[in-house]
């Protein structure tokens, strides 16, 4: 596969000069040292093949936007180069350059013109845009009378009026009504099928894992992880919780999956197991069976409070169910070093057939953001098979009683 986008060792730094005259002089070859240089990106290097969908994740200030701006061409890299084969279209900020007093239609001409299209090219797809935006009679009303959702619709329709080779989608998409979100997602997927490369920037784990087949994690201006989305997102999640003395490590398990463990280590999960009603350790369970999840936790240091959280994730990493002992009001107050606790969670497996994993979290309150003693993804993997229930599709066992009545003879 040939690559449509090559980012070759780019770095970006913003320069502060003690006097702006030094900057001007530097354009003409005079060597003035900037007073300060802020390095935003450091040696970013990757290539994206045609049709790939890449998620770009990272904390605020990690350099995501700067990277996108360099790829779209509004900023120039200080070092390195970007090679693009084909047209690039970016949904960075929908409605950019919209003029409130102009009608939707006039704004379409204007902003499509800004993207470099000619009048004839815009005319050719004007009807499609109008149909796609679904703002009906508002299309010929001034944009200032639009709701923000309507503005988004028109803006999205313009940006995607022609299929680009590379489509960059920033979080902008997560606003707007669900109906249109689905509709725009549909269009993005359609483009993808036709070979458009997708670059998605999001904090939304679900979106990244559902759409992307690769993820790139940026941290402090550098790529620190590039690979399978689930693995990268696990690492990212752990990173958010990272504190000074905390560690993040990833271990490759026998089945090739990567287990991510992070945390400060005041308490750890010693053992975890799934048991059936006959008290046997199981790996395969039937749909609808009642099981017990037993988690043994050891406290290593005196802490204020201890909360156990867990989540069941499907093979794509989407959380099926999750809760913690904060919500169930079973917080352990001031556990002492050396104490060992057993948590027994009993629940029916109302899940569809497939492979699932369990993540555990030992924290102090309801989230892992204030204190994260230990966070473990893929702590345990189990499979659900449909043994005796009616055949069904989906990940949720929700068996109906179906009544069929003949009402006309």
């Amino acid at each position, binding site marked *: 596969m040939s690559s449509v986008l090559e980012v070759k060792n780019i770095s970006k730094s*913003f*320069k502060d000069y003690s006097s*702006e*005259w030094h*900057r*001007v002089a530097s*354009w*003409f070859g005079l060597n003035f040292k900037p007073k300060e240089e802020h390095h935003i990106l450091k040696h970013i290097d990757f290539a994206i093949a045609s049709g790939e969908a890449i998620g770009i994740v990272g904390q605020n200030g990690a350099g995501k936007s700067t990277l996108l*701006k360099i790829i*779209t*061409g*509004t*900023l*120039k890299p200080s070092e390195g180069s970007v090679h693009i084969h084909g047209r690039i279209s970016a949904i*960075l*900020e929908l409605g*950019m*350059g919209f*003029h409130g*007093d*102009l009608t939707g239609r*006039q704004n379409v*001409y*204007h902003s499509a*013109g*800004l*993207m*470099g299209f*000619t*009048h004839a090219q815009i005319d050719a797809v004007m009807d499609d845009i109008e149909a796609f935006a679904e703002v009906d009679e508002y299309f010929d009303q*001034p944009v200032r009378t639009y709701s923000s959702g309507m503005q988004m619709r028109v803006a999205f329709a313009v940006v995607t009026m022609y299929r680009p080779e590379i489509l960059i989608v920033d979080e902008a998409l997560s606003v707007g009504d669900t109906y249109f979100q689905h509709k725009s997602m549909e269009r993005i997927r359609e483009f993808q099928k036709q070979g458009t490369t997708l670059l998605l920037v999001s904090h939304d784990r679900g979106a990244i894992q559902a759409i992307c087949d690769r993820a790139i994690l940026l941290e402090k201006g550098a790529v620190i992880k590039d690979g399978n989305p689930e693995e990268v997102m696990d690492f990212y999640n752990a990173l958010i919780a990272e504190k000074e003395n905390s560690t993040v490590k990833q271990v490759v398990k026998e089945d090739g999956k990567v287990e991510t463990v992070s945390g400060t280590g005041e308490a750890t999960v010693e053992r975890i197991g799934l048991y059936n009603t006959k008290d046997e350790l199981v790996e395969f369970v039937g749909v609808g069976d009642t099981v017990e999840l037993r988690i043994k936790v050891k406290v290593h240091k005196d802490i204020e409070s201890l909360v156990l959280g867990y989540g069941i994730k499907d093979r794509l990493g989407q959380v099926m169910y999750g809760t913690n002992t904060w919500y169930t009001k079973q917080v352990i107050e001031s556990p002492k070093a050396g104490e060992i606790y057993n948590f027994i969670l009993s629940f029916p497996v109302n899940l569809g057939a497939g492979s699932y994993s369990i993540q555990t979290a030992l924290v102090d309150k309801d989230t892992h953001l204030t204190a994260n003693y230990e966070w473990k993804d893929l702590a345990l993997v189990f499979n659900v098979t449909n043994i005796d229930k009616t055949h069904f599709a989906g990940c949720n066992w929700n068996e109906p009683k179906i009544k069929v009545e003949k009402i006309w003879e």
Partner: protein
Amino acid sequence: MKDTNDKYTFRRQQMKNMILAVWSYRFFILSSIKTEFKSRFIRSKLGGFWMVIHPLAQVLVYALILSQIMTAKLPEVSTQYAYPIYILSGVVVWTLFAEVLSKSLNVFISNGNLLKKMAFPKLALPLITIGGALLNFGILLVMMFVVFGFLGHLPYHALHWLPLLTLLTLALATGLGLFLGTLNVFMRDIGQMMDVVLQFWFWLTPVIYMMSIVPEKYHSLFMINPMTGIVLGFQNILLYDKAPDVSLLVYPAIFAIISLVLAMIVFYKAREEMADVL
């Protein structure tokens, strides 16, 4: 030697690409001028005409106040409205010059958000500004002739000089505006300073008064001002109904060309760093 030669060809290629990119945006530039003009009429009835009413009111004020004193200084013109016509001729061209210059100064800053988010030829922005100003100038010119008609003054012998002088004014204003406008992105004081400079500049150009009331020994100083020759040219065409003094236009033309070249060089050097500081 070969190395510097290569560098030179490379730069020329880049410069050419930059201009080609603008050319490919010609539809956008034209439609932007049109929409900007149209949008002025959307929420106010007189819309774009306010741009014309403003300078006309200015002329009216000066004419009412200064007519008594100044008309005597224009003995070679027979009409009693010589002075209003004199001011109008100068104000028309000054308005074009000042509008292009002051708008070009801020064109990159006021579109900063756009420049940071969208990739498009940056030169399109000053071109839209120039187009808009030219449109205003056209309307102003038409209104001026309407006023001339009322005053019973219809110059026609040298009107073919107007396009050339207009072009010269545009070149001068664009050259200065783009040069300072580019620097203004990095040094915002320039924009503020130019507001003040423009006020003095107006009064140092013979728009309201005549060169004849300026003492002879200062005349050469006035000729340093590139706008002097242009304004005198407009007054020749519109008031005295005769061709402008070409010898007075050589200096503004050279000034315009040099400032345009400087502007392109500075813009070319600065264009990649612009979005960094916006």
